């Protein structure tokens, strides 16, 4: 039982079912995409999986372990990392501090050890180098451009060493060159064995990047499969055009 499995997940807000009895399986070790019209429950689904909100019903298992409704940090410790829609970084911390914040202290005593331990800083710098913003390591995140913040957020997620990464619109609001770069990063990280689950509106990105696509409509999956097959599915077309 490897990877992430979601069964019967339900979450409603004031009578509106944002996620409605959703059962989804993802291909572990691959790049999965989650698509669907606005308001189809993708972000709520993310929030339920990562423990940001408690689902009303259903189960989420990871590597066979039930993680439903566990605190977000525990889910992070289990190996699931995520980014946020519209990009969230710690604005008044420097780039390198943004990464150091994701280091797990281990024990109470070690929590009081200096955050800038050489090995951690080296690892952070390596990640910043990998996303290409190492020259901005000591700049506060709020002074970075939007694209740089997106890269920083991704590096921060990686710092926590997840093996499954949920990205909420990684290509949203950034220029084509950067979209390309993020795509390459995702591919190379995937090649190293990390599983991805991506919510994305940019169909070109979805089609070129993903191995497996799940389509959401009104809080539940209506289709899944390889990108080409999904693209031709009449249900999907109806949801997008008729919704």
């Amino acid at each position, binding site marked *: 039982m490897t990877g992430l499995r979601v069964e019967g997940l339900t979450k409603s807000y004031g009578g509106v079912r944002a996620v409605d009895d959703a059962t989804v399986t993802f291909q572990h070790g691959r790049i999965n995409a989650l698509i669907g019209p606005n308001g189809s429950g993708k972000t709520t689904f993310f929030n339920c999986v990562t423990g*940001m909100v408690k689902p009303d019903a259903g189960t989420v298992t990871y590597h066979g372990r039930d993680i439903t409704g566990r605190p977000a*940090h525990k889910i992070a410790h289990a190996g699931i990392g995520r980014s946020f829609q519209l990009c969230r970084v710690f604005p008044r911390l420097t780039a390198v501090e943004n990464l150091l914040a*994701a280091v797990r202290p281990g024990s109470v005593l070690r929590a009081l050890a200096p955050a800038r331990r050489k090995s951690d800083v080296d690892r952070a710098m390596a990640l910043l180098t990998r996303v290409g913003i190492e020259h901005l390591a000591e700049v506060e995140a709020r002074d970075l451009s939007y694209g740089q913040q997106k890269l920083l957020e991704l590096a921060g997620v990686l710092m926590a060493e997840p093996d499954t990464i949920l990205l909420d619109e990684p290509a949203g609001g950034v220029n084509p060159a950067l979209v390309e770069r993020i795509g390459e990063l995702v591919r190379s990280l995937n090649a190293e064995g990390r599983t991805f689950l991506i919510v994305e509106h940019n169909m070109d990105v979805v089609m070129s990047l993903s191995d497996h696509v799940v389509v959401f409509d009104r809080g539940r999956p209506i289709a899944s499969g390889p990108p080409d097959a999904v693209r031709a599915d009449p249900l999907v077309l109806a949801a997008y055009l008729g919704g």
Partner: protein
Amino acid sequence: MKAVGLVVLAAFLVAFPSLASDPFVLSVGVVIASYAVLATGWNFVGGFTGYISLGHAAYSGLGGYATGLLILRAGLNPWVALVVGALVVAVLAVPVGIAALRVRGASFVIVSIAVVLVLLLVFQSWGSVTGGSDGLRVPRPFDADVLRPEQHQRFFHLHAVLLGVMLLCWWVIDRSRFGMGLKAIREDEDKARSLGVPTVRYKLAAFVVSAFFTALGGGLYALWFGFLDPIFQFSILVGSNMVLMSLLGGVRSLFGPLVGAVVVGYATEFSKAQYGDTQLHLVAMGVLLAVVVLFLPDGIIPALRGLVARLRPGQASIREVTQEELVRR
């Protein structure tokens, strides 16, 4: 350079009592030192986590009462009572913290205010233990032959030592992994959670440490002042003073609350001596707080630092952009 500054500061703290022209100036020094201790105590939770407590008077007041009651009712040595009292307050802060920190922002502030108000009611009503509205006289920790000016001097140094210990703790946390986690919570709590920071535990730890130090400050002040009255101990104004001082100096700076305490404490004395008998001090405090919140949200120290960086030629650093951006907002 930094070391030189610290040495100068330490030398000043040691020498201040002999520089003071009379015992009144010395007593003002004790009051300002106490402000600095309380504001720095507040800043363990306010500065690191960004949770603004308007009710920290609860912990200074509890610290004062715990110290006084342990001396009077349990017969403890005053200094033992001070520490034990602060530990008791720290333990009491755990359930309060759990209730307050379960929820974000608005509810936290509401709880912090409610705690002060409820303690005021309890300490007024439970007269058989707390002395109620008659107040509680805290015995002197020193012999009767230690005259008042000598007392001021000793208490000034005691406050300075406590402040030093607190600043050291703050500094250690500031550069630690724990501190990094707290700052992450301050900047974006959900994001911090998603990165694996155990936010509830971290916030609670910071809250309890803050309550502990604030209680020590309150206890030390009670030993000096010698009299506790619930309406003055559990007062929202006392708590809001801590907020104003910390915010004014800069909540993200080690010395921010200290600087804020000196500025506010000095300004209070000065304006009282100059302008005396009006309700204007409330208006002035309100306006000052509003100005800080609206225009100086990072406090004096970062603002001055930014200004210095700007004036220095050839230092067209990234921080200038920050300043301009702030203005544009």
